[in-house]
């Protein structure tokens, strides 16, 4: 017996990236903008989407793919706010969505009647950052109940993001969260990041979020 070394040097994420490119092309062919919404658990993704669907679900022809480790509770919550399809992906314990799951979910969505696809990723600030889903832009929710140093602790998530939505701002009087320092930490990791501050409960800042979504759809979309 002799031992032989075979050089490979193949990217482990290559297959996912190929599938993500196919998803991106499929969405582009239908003129659909996809946004990948990511955050830690409990940052307010579902509440933000509930408010969003109630106001913009029909005008922007929004479809939602909602990922969860177990249960489809989030998808059920969202479905109560829209007549449009909310497609659940239960990952069976996996900590992120991948492009194959999104590709499969698209088979259940009426793409002809969709202009904006929001992908609610699994709540996790680590793993989802590594998986391209075919989205046009990535939005990270960063809530004021977290430490303002989260961008430094989870840099990849913020490096790969286009926008940061600072959520639950109505709680700022009650928590030791320094907004200026949080923004500084975000920009330290990714100087190109843009910010929206919202409270889905009081409605503060929601207009800016809605404007961002309106700008995101259509042939002249800028996200």
């Amino acid at each position, binding site marked *: 017996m002799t*031992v*032989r070394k075979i050089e*490979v*040097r193949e*990217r482990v994420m290559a297959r996912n990236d190929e599938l993500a490119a196919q998803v991106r092309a499929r969405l582009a062919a239908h003129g659909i903008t996809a946004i990948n919404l990511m955050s830690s658990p409990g940052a307010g993704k579902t509440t933000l989407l509930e408010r969003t669907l109630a106001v913009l679900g029909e005008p922007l022809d929004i479809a939602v793919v909602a990922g969860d480790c177990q249960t489809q509770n989030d998808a059920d919550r969202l479905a109560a706010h829209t007549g449009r399809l909310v497609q659940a992906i239960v990952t069976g314990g996996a900590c992120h969505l991948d492009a194959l799951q999104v590709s499969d979910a698209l088979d259940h969505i009426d793409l002809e009647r969709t202009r904006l696809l929001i992908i609610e990723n699994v709540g996790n600030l680590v793993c989802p*950052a590594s998986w391209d889903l075919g989205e046009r832009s990535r939005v990270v929710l960063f809530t004021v109940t977290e430490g303002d140093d989260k961008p430094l602790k989870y840099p990849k998530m913020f490096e790969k993001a286009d926008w940061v939505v600072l959520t639950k701002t109505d709680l700022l009087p009650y928590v030791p969260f320094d907004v200026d320092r949080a923004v500084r930490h975000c920009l330290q990791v990714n100087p190109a990041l843009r910010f929206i501050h919202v409270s889905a409960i009081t409605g503060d800042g929601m207009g800016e979020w809605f404007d961002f979504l309106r700008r995101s759809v259509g042939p002249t979309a800028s996200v």
Partner: protein
Amino acid sequence: MHELSLAMEIGRLAEERLGASVPRCVAVGVDVGTASGVEPSALSFCLEAVLSHPPWTGAQPVLAHPVGDHLLLTWLEVEDDDRPED
């Protein structure tokens, strides 16, 4: 679970590379970039689990940690049967 998904994909890539006539693979080399978002010890643990099942026969994962955000299957070490073919 992130690392288990990756370990399974590494196993799939290695199997694809070795083809149907899989020789005995004794080691699997993986580059885990320092900024890859992958925990090397967790990936090693998951790879050991994946490589303990057929068609693998206990190949050992060998992880390197270069600077960067890449994750690569870098090499495979296989045992060749030196007996001449009939």
